[in-house]
């Protein structure tokens, strides 16, 4: 008996309710070969989580001082809308820092690391005669009832080689007495990644719920929309007095 070449599959045939007698082609398609006319059975394309723009976009520890490639495939919005309530307000690359602060007398550096997707914020001492120094992400946007909480996530050297702990504050603009958060409201999440060979701590600077802490009076939980002039939030980082390094990775708001 001769050899028989068999078509390698068949489009779905619905012959019985359980479909156990159905011929099927699943996760593939058929294609006619150009020259010989043979039909090929070809696996369909696969999928991966979109990486944003084709480049690295994942957060990864930079352990050697050199930028290292991120991990492809990170376009997951699950963390934004995971029903925990915390969602990204802006990605870090959309933030615009104000630098230096007008009152600063220290040297500064604030650079966006597009590989690790964080802002690297440095300050260091070059002289005397200062009180505070820092950077600020100004005018983050209008909350206006959108959220009942706001937080920033930061990796920071707990005891920088030449500096002190950093301090973080949220403001309602204009900056002045209208500080939304008190100094040092960080929630220490424990060890963060080792960056440039130095272990970091991971912090959330948190206001939850959003309250108007401006004196006087201190209002009960204020869903900022009730305030008729201060709806814009800034986030500042300060070093007193010897400098420090931190890495701002996200600013998020809470939507119940």
């Amino acid at each position, binding site marked *: 008996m001769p050899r028989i070449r*068999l078509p390698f599959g068949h*489009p779905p045939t619905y012959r019985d309710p359980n479909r156990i007698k159905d011929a*099927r082609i699943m996760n593939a*398609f058929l294609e006619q070969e150009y020259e010989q006319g043979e039909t090929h059975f070809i696996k369909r394309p696969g999928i991966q*989580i979109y990486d944003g723009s084709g480049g690295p976009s994942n957060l990864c520890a930079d352990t050697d001082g050199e930028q290292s490639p991120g991990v492809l495939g990170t*376009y997951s919005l699950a963390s934004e809308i995971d029903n925990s309530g915390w969602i990204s*307000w802006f990605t870090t690359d959309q933030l615009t820092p104000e630098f230096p602060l007008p009152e600063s007398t220290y040297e500064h550096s604030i650079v966006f690391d597009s590989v690790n997707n964080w802002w690297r914020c440095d300050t260091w001492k070059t002289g005397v005669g200062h009180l505070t120094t820092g950077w600020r992400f100004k005018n983050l946007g209008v909350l206006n009832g959108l959220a009942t909480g706001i937080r920033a996530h930061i990796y920071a050297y707990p005891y920088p080689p030449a500096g002190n702990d950093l301090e973080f504050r949220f403001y309602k603009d204009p900056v002045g007495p209208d500080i939304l958060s008190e100094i040092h409201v960080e929630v220490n999440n424990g060890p963060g990644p080792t960056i440039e060979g130095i272990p970091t701590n991971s912090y959330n600077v948190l206001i939850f719920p959003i309250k108007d802490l401006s004196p006087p009076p201190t209002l009960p939980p204020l869903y900022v929309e009730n305030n008729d002039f201060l709806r814009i939030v800034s986030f500042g980082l300060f070093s007193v007095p010897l400098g420090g390094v931190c890495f701002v990775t996200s600013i998020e708001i809470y939507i119940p």
Partner: protein
Amino acid sequence: MANQGEGMYSWQGSLYSIFDGKVIRDLSFIFEGTDDGAFFYFTETTGGINLVFKNSTNAYYINQSALNTVLEITDVDYPSVTVPGVAYLDGYMFVMTPNGEIHNSDTADAFTSWNSLGFIQANIEPDCGVFIFKQFNYICALGKYSIEFFYDAGLPAPGSPLAPVPNLFNLIGCASARSFARNGPQVFFMGQTKHVGRSIQLLEGYQLKNISNPYIERILNKDNLETVYAFCIRTVGHSFYILTLVNSNLTLCYDATSGIWYEWTSFNGTNEVYFNAVAYAAHLGHDLLQGETDANIYDMKPTLYQDNGQPIYVRSRTELLDVGENKRKELSFIDVIADKEASSTLQIKYTVNDYQSFTAFRNVDLSLERSSLNRCGQFRRIAFESLHTSNTPFRAEALELDILPGSS
């Protein structure tokens, strides 16, 4: 449903995706709108200056000058309830109500301004409105049992500028608005008439064509259409219409290039289920798919041989083969004629009792010079099922069978 994908669109270099009414621009949340559980449909205004998107109860827009700012169309004359779909034509934006009224915005791209007299009724057939879209320069009102076309007759405000095109009317309607999908000038939807029985219709130009076969229509008729997803994607030189029937746990895939139907699945780590995508957007050269409820945006690429780290279950199951006679035959060899790939295995099993039971899978190494099975027993009628899950390309041409005459 939590994290329900409700549509996405690429505009001004950004990807706008909506989950549970939450609008995400690229990776950032920018707005939470009213979530009525309905899918969002998008259109642009002249010059792509504004992105307009709507669900059944609300319409929103973004201007190119403020890509993170979502505003709502609040004109009291904008219909309170609309059917899926939105269409833009000659400076007007058109939506349709469930009773078949096609409402238009004021002209000159005044899409935020509507008036109560600016509508025309699709009333050749007294059915309900199901979906509205544009085909070439016509506005198409897809009803429950009919499709009606309108053109811009330039009729003066405050009435509708539209007038009907009676000769294009057709008595095929839409069984499920979510079955609608477009690939350029090709429009697909699940059709129905006043007779029992559904079909898949392809609108090419102004002509409707039934592209479903009896097998596909049996599947369509069995589903309750409670949850349906559809989109088109053009990849690897093929143009696919993807239709998911959640109730049937089934994704049907129509290859418009070859006219053949297939099934696509996703493996969720435990089970093989319907394909996990509800919407498509072409964005910066990527074919992006919106996950159903996992809040992910997926990139489909021909160079990927898995689905986000999970295997793709590539199956084929043949029809029964008897080689022209019902006598017992001996199957001495099965050769797999396929591309040679390292670390690629094809599993093959077969049934000799009309699909009542199959043998156990046997592995065929596709890297060998001869990829084959031997001593495959006897049969009168036989059907084969193959399964490929390796993280490799897979292209096969045939099963080549060595068959010897057996006893009667």
